[in-house]
């Protein structure tokens, strides 16, 4: 294959493609890496490192003791939704110590999907705060873990202080269909915002 501009028509189908950058965010171990891996059509970029004892008291593993690695920089994957729309998914680390990287990676992003876990809702406040301070539109996806309580939508909305217009969906980050639905909820939301007069 030749060298190419990415927008070069030789490598893409005939229609004009729009690249949309989206962030996949959420607190520690909520399932961001799993989510990006499930949806990416290319081998995802991973920056997993084995968790060390240094993190024992910082990164809380209650309920997910089989998790052995954590993301130290980012996840990346690509998903072509249609001839016209290509999504670039950037997963970002959930821990406070990575905030600066988080802010850099949010450059150019059109929106964020916030993954939350109903057993640890309070862990999500910090990341939702970051998203809001960046001024990023977002949707919330509840990543259902085995044994996590089913919380009624109204209660979730209140706990997370969501606007009535903010999409709230359920997914299992290991499952492609439900993960795709969550992402499409975000994309639809972004399109709606786009059509509203500013």
């Amino acid at each position, binding site marked *: *294959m*030749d*060298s*190419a*501009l*990415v*927008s*070069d*028509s*030789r*490598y893409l189908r005939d229609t*004009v493609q729009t*690249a949309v*950058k989206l962030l996949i965010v959420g607190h520690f171990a909520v399932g961001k890496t799993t989510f990006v891996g499930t949806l990416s059509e*290319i*081998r*995802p*970029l991973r*920056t997993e490192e084995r968790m060390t004892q240094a993190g024992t008291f910082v990164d809380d593993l209650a309920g997910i003791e089989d998790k052995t690695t954590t993301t130290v*920089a*980012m996840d*990346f994957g*690509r998903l072509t939704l249609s001839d016209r729309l290509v999504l*670039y998914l*950037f997963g970002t680390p959930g821990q406070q110590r990575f905030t*600066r*990287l988080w802010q*850099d*990676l949010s*450059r*150019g*992003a059109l929106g964020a999907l916030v993954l939350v876990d109903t057993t640890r809702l309070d862990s999500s406040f910090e990341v939702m705060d970051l998203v809001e301070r960046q001024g990023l539109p977002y949707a919330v996806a509840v990543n259902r873990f085995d044994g996590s309580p089913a919380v009624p939508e109204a209660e979730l909305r209140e706990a997370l202080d969501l606007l009535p217009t903010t999409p709230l969906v359920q997914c299992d980050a290991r499952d492609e269909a439900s993960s795709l639905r969550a992402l499409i909820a975000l994309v639809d939301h972004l399109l709606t915002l786009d059509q509203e007069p500013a």
Partner: protein
Amino acid sequence: MIDVTNNRLGWMLDDALRMPETRHGILLSADGLLMAHSERIDRDEAERQAAAMAGLQSLARGTAEFCGDPGTTWRQTISEFDDGYVFLVAAGAGAYLAVSASPQVDMEAVSFRLQELVQRLGKELTSPPRESRPA
């Protein structure tokens, strides 16, 4: 869509990679999206590398304070592997250039060539190729 005959950015990368012992080159936006790539790296790999380079740049900048003033300007990051080197440099406003090379490469010559390329790219980026059809 950009006119095929105006594909100067990719061509410029290949041109720069004509020097001995260099491998691939990519141009990426600061937000981690691929802008152009050289001939022998495919698009999927180039896009993955573009994302990784943006992360690398961000993390590198995060280490500025370890060196001096936290606001000191980042110039380049060089990674060394058994199999060679990766050079990551700023390429004008909002863009980075990454080039890989074998362990035998003349590092000084590469650095010089990259600076040269950055200047040419800078001109190219400020005057984007003409659209092939009206927008």
